[in-house]
């Protein structure tokens, strides 16, 4: 049953990721990216990361992608034109990438030969309580630094995107 669900969501993720590259209009790419993020959230859930799965849906698929779609709609720049190198990329890039992925799979298989099995429910300490406890004890300083980073990003975005007043 685990393998069944993994294969379903992995297939959705890979097909949507390919669709991001293939589509010419940015809005189609954005919607495919939402598909990737949703299926990744399901995979996180299977790995026992409940809090991360929820945050993935809320922060990534919700907030960030809404921002993307909003900017695409505002700019409305239409399709893109590829450079002349596009044909070569299509001819050589796909086989080379497949070769690289095969090599990478071989390396992963060689590095972790004893195939440990992932079972749903095999790791139960990924809930909000455990993540929050680690976040506010061991990782308190990075958490505060990251909140300052968010503040800087907000100010930077406002400064960059405002209308020139004077």
């Amino acid at each position, binding site marked *: 049953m685990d393998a069944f669900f993994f294969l379903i969501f992995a297939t959705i993720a890979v097909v949507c990721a390919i669709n*991001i590259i293939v589509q010419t209009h940015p809005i189609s790419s954005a919607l495919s990216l939402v598909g990737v993020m949703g299926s990744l959230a399901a995979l996180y859930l299977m790995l026992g990361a409940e809090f991360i799965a929820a945050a993935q849906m809320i922060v990534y698929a919700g907030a960030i992608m809404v921002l993307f779609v909003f900017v695409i709609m505002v700019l409305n720049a239409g399709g893109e034109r590829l450079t002349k190198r596009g044909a070569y990329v299509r001819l050589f890039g796909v086989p080379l990438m497949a070769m690289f992925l095969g090599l990478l799979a071989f390396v992963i298989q060689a590095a972790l030969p004893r195939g440990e099995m992932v079972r749903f429910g095999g790791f139960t300490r990924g809930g909000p309580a455990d993540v929050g406890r680690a976040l506010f004890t061991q990782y308190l300083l990075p958490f505060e630094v990251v909140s300052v980073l968010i503040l800087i*990003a907000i100010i930077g975005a406002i400064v*960059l995107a405002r209308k020139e007043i004077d």
Partner: protein
Amino acid sequence: MSGVPLNWYLILSAILFCLGIAGFLYRRNIITLFMSIELMLNAVNLTFVTFSYKFKQVDGHIFTFFVMVVAAAEAAVGLAIILTVFKNRQTLQVDDVNSMKN
């Protein structure tokens, strides 16, 4: 109830990361390049969570959380930059934004 090999998750993450790289190199639209970067970040997050499962530690989840925060900040600033570029040049092609090339 046999489960899924841990390696499958890592290989899926590698596939998604490579697709992100391919999109970043192939596409010419700034917004699509940005989305490819987000795809790569997501692939790395999957690796973090997988190893968090393997070592039965919650640390990988914390790192994933920080990556999400940084991605949100990056998207906010980056999209503001894209808006500014479009306001000044009326184009989203990365090849046309080349005033620092010469």
